[in-house]
């Protein structure tokens, strides 16, 4: 196996390296990817120059992510959702042996309790800030780095932190299994719902422009911008829920009680 692996790896490596000299130079602004082939249309140049006209969103990445390639992003969210469902399907075990609800393995000592208190207090202080920041990241994705994914992961991480600092049950009390699974579904519902609304208004799927009919005082361009925020929120819901779901299942072997 070792030799086979080495040969396969070496072979692949040589193959990849053999093409490297023919690459455009690193950082070349005129490479085909950056500037198109032989002065033809370049997708990326279009994005840089026209995004603002099309969508009024300054963060090009967000605009491309949620509008131009919004279809990709929707399925990316579906991938996350699928991962959540998958982990539930693989790991979740119901009933079975119930473990005593108090941790015995790690910290019964007084010293442990002290640590717990310190960690607990710190987290109490820090978690609201993290969550606030997460919401900011989601909401401000149009203007600064960030968006639904990043915000969602951070929000999910705040719950993970809660579970780490106290106990899984504490976090689950706030964000129970039913809730997070529902939230994950709702997230994708929001995303695809935006798309479906467009279909209902006789435009193509995810063609947000038409939604200006439903949004007061917006034109097509602003409708795109607002809808992007909407789908980002949807993404954030799903990501938050699933990140926590994955953690909750992994840390408790799928029992969802008394994780570490």
């Amino acid at each position: 196996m070792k030799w086979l692996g080495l040969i396969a790896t070496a072979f692949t490596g040589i193959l990849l390296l053999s093409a490297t000299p023919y690459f455009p130079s690193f950082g070349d602004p005129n490479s085909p990817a950056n500037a198109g082939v032989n002065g033809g249309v370049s997708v990326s140049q279009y994005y840089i120059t026209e995004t603002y006209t099309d969508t009024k969103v300054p963060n090009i990445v967000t605009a491309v992510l949620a509008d131009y390639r919004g279809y990709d992003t929707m399925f990316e969210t579906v991938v996350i959702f699928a991962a959540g469902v998958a982990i539930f399907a693989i790991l979740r075990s119901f009933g079975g042996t119930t473990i005593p609800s108090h941790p015995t393995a790690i910290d019964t000592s007084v010293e442990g309790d002290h640590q717990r208190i310190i960690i607990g207090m710190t987290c109490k202080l820090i978690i609201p800030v993290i969550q606030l920041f997460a919401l900011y990241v989601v909401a401000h994705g149009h203007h600064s780095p960030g968006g639904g994914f990043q915000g969602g992961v951070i929000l999910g991480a705040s719950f993970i932190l809660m579970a780490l600092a106290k106990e899984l049950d504490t976090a689950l009390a706030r964000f129970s299994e039913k809730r997070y699974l529902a939230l994950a579904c709702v997230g994708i519902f929001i995303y695809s719902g935006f798309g479906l609304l467009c279909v209902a208004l006789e435009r193509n799927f995810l063609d947000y422009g038409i939604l200006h009919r439903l949004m007061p005082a917006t034109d097509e361009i602003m409708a795109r911008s607002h809808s992007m925020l909407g789908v980002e929120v949807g993404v954030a819901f799903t990501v938050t829920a699933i990140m926590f779901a994955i953690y909750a299942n992994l840390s408790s072997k799928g029992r969802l009680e008394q994780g570490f």
Partner: protein
Amino acid sequence: MSEQLPAILLLSPLFGALITGLVGMTDHRRCFPILATALTVSLFCAISLLAQVVKSGPIDYFVGGWDPQRVPLGIGIQLRIDGINALLLVVITTVALLTSIYSIRRAGEENTEKTPQFYMLSQMLCVGLLGITVTADAFNLFVLVEVSSLTSYALVAMGSKPRGTMAAFNYIIMGTIGASFYLLGVGYLYMKTGMLNMAAIHQILSDPNVGHSPTVYVAFILILVGVWTKMAFFPLYGWLPNAYSYCPSTTSCLLAPLMTKVSVYVMIRVMLSVFGSEWIFQSLGWSHTVVWLACIAIVAGSVLALAQVELKKMLCYLIVAEVGYMVGGAWLANHWGMVGAIYHILSDAFMTLCLFIAANIFIKNRRAERIDQLEGLFKKMPITTTGFVIGALAMIGVPPTAGFFSKWYLLRGGIESGQWGYVVALLISSLVNAILFFRIFEVAYFGKNPVESHDAHHDHEDETQPSSVGDSTLFSGEGRPTTVIPLLITAAIIVLLGVFNGPIVEIIQQALDGMPVVGAAIR
């Protein structure tokens, strides 16, 4: 509304999955109606798309309204439905629907608490597969491949068999390598062309300055190896047999017919609409090498199948051989080879489904995992075995089943391109299939240890009295109607697909007119 069908096609199972997630959590019995509705809507969409395509040519759908009239091509994501993938859509939805009927009670038995999750995953798998089939964007294809892969990892790992989980892990590793290679290949293409839309890439690659760059060659190799890993082409097949034979039966019915076939379609799609057959067959000139690889795959798959004692394992190795058929056919570098490969995708999906359903019924009802445990099945389960026999005959290639005609087209392609090795491999594999399945028929018909001499039983069953196989006992060994009916429908489809292969091949040819297969330049 009819121009929105491509979106509805995909959204229907997606919403089905979400609603299952919300509603099914509390009541497991509501899962199946949701699934059936979602898939029926999808099937309806697929059929009407096919009708539209046949009537008025390929359909282009631009998600987000970024169509080339407004913006340059490739800004948004394009979906493209031509005759070939319209057919595939119908096949995917039909197979999924049939499997869902099969799973009505099986899913509940196999994953008692996780029935809704099973249904959600299988619907998302359909979303992924349908999406792969319709998309015309190289990167979007990767995302959808991941949707289908992740769900299939989970579906494989859901089973209670320890070996199944281990197989799922190997599947994840191989699947990730495959998908990553594909992604890397797309990256190489993007680096050279600046485009992700398949048609746009194709246009740029037709410029020899770009098309003959080593980067593009490496990109092609990467994509090819990636897709081959996903479809279990011969040296990269290692993950498949365990994953498909130790997973829950409903999963195997869903994955075995669809996953590899869709991967083969991806290869064909990449070959025809991204690189173009001219580039592949004329400037690359590897068709001989790949066809030889395919021959090895066919022969190796058949021989390995011959060595198996477990029924499902044997079927899995047959899939490996069948993949060889399709890869070889697609690389024969002529029209008929391609037609044969595409037609084989369709027919093989149903053949595999038929055999897997039957095998699963055998395993469930008679605990017969090994071939030698199948004794006397013809008597005990006549209907199920009939279905099995039809699937097996199709696999062997007996007319008028679909398997015969796909082999016919493939052979024609092989003879026309002078790839005699491929022709011989195909015939050998047909013969091996015949041996394989008649070995099973024999066991099922005679029993394991037949009576020594035929004088012994002349009196053991007097026909003047009611035969031992009376009405009351005839069907008692059968599986449930929900498992037998899909089997019979599949068997009927196999025959119908064979008998009426004309219109289907016509559609395929019509679609290939748009992207003709140009043969190799020098022979």
